[in-house]
């Protein structure tokens, strides 16, 4: 990147960040850093673009509830509902009572509850009300769909190139994507899963890699359609880790299970200790995967937001001279982390699968 490109990017970035926060800063409400950041990295039923409260601009996403039948309505009916302050709580907060089609539901901290006699019974910041099964297209779900759409568009056009031109040198988008696919196969799958068996897992590992990569990068874009902390959401990393766990367990061969239930070279007297340890080990490996991706991506978002928040804590745009370059630095670092975490998740998944399918050799 040339220097002018960096400067242009910097100015656009500053402008957008300024735009996103000016409305909030002019208001005479005390700026709560942790609440703002937690709100940004969490999920929501709306996609907030700019502005504050009812004056702000948001994309209201559809709420889908399974509560004695499927109920679908716009989250507008929740966000534009009456705000009721919660008493008997550790910290002051307010929930929104749904109107119209959202009648009978309330929104507290982005969670939907069923109203009990028209109100929530909050004890120690936790409502006792029942929760309907929430299958809403939330901010993260929409981001997931956008990411999937981008991934499909890019990958299918790559595939189309080869379908059209046959086995020739890549051009256009294929020139960019092909080395990545070949890299995943040659540097992630092949070294970890030995022998001809690796071909069976190329699809899974490559999909994991690109899924994480695209969503990581999408999360780094400050405005719509990016910015959702999807890969920093525990539900997503939980699912991905679960996939790795299931693939590992179901492709485990005799040798793999033998190493768990009768580890070679371990005296039989130690087996009562070893077997539980090995069994727990099956779960800790994917668990570490889940936590690693979640923590890394969430931490990145928190750092960028914290640095930008310096401006609003001090209520002076001059602090932007410090905070924007620092946020830019972290953002660039996060691009590296986006690749690194995708690589790590794919690589470790391949490693675990490779250990499960390895044949006995001595």
């Amino acid at each position, binding site marked *: 990147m040339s220097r002018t490109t960096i400067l242009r990017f910097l100015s656009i970035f500053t402008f957008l960040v300024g735009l996103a926060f000016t409305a909030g800063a002019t208001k005479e409400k005390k700026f709560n850093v942790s609440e703002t950041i*937690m709100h940004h*990295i*969490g*999920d929501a039923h709306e996609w907030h673009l700019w502005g504050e409260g009812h004056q702000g601009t948001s994309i209201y996403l559809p709420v*889908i509830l399974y509560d004695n039948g499927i109920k679908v309505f716009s989250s507008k009916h929740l966000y534009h509902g009456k705000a009721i302050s919660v008493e008997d709580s550790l910290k002051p907060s307010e929930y929104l009572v749904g109107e119209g089609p959202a009648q009978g539901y309330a929104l507290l*901290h982005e*969670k939907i509850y069923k109203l009990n006699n028209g109100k929530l019974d909050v004890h120690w910041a936790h409502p006792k009300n029942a929760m309907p*099964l*929430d*299958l*809403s*297209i*939330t901010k*993260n*779900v929409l981001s*997931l*769909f956008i990411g*999937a759409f981008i*991934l*499909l568009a890019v*990958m*299918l056009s*790559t*595939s189309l190139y*080869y*379908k059209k031109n*046959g*086995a*020739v*040198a890549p051009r256009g988008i*294929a020139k960019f*994507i*092909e080395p990545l*696919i*070949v890299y995943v*196969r040659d540097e992630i799958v092949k070294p970890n899963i030995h022998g001809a068996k690796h071909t069976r897992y*190329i*699809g*899974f590992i*490559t*999909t994991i890699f*690109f*899924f994480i990569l695209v969503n990581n990068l999408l999360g780094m874009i400050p405005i719509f359609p990016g910015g959702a902390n999807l890969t920093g*959401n*525990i*539900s*997503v990393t*939980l*699912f*991905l880790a679960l*996939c790795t766990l299931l693939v590992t367990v179901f492709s485990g061969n005799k040798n793999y299970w033998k190493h768990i239930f009768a580890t070679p070279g371990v005296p039989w007297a130690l087996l009562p200790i070893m077997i539980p340890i090995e069994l727990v080990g099956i779960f800790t490996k994917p668990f570490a995967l889940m936590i690693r991706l*979640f923590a890394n991506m*969430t931490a990145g978002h928190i750092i960028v937001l914290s640095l930008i928040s310096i401006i609003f804590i001090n209520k002076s745009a001059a602090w932007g001279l410090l905070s924007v370059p620092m946020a830019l630095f972290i953002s660039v670092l996060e691009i590296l982390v986006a690749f690194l975490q995708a690589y790590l998740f794919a690589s470790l998944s391949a490693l675990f699968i490779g250990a499960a399918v390895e044949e006995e050799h001595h």
Partner: protein
Amino acid sequence: MDLVTPSFGLLFWTGITFCLLLLVLAKFVWKPVLSAVNARSQKIDEALLEAEKARQEMKSLHAENERILKEARAERDAILKEAKEAGARMIEEARDKSKIEGQKLIESAKLAINSERNSAIADMKAQIATFSVDIAESLVKESLASDDKQKALASKMVQDIQLN
């Protein structure tokens, strides 16, 4: 605590999206793209191998050409040598032939000269005889004017004849 509590909704949508992505991408992207890449690398390998083979062939062809050229050159040399020898031989033969021819000519010339000379001598002899007779006649006419002289001459002639 909300941060680390999975939500069922997102889990559900992630599951569906990821599984669909896995199916579609594995079937329509990873497989065809990687098989295209494999096919291409195989094609490149083959092309390289073929190029190497062609190079070897070129090399052997070159060697063959060189050999043929060398043979041709040797043949040319041999032919030239032979031609030179043949030429020399022909010249030699011609020289010998001409020598013999010359000798023959000389011989026949000699013979002719001899026969000419002989005939000339014979002719001369005849003429001399005629001249002698004429001279003798005139001499005789003169000297035989007297008897003595006639006698003397006759005796002398007799003597000469005896001597001959």
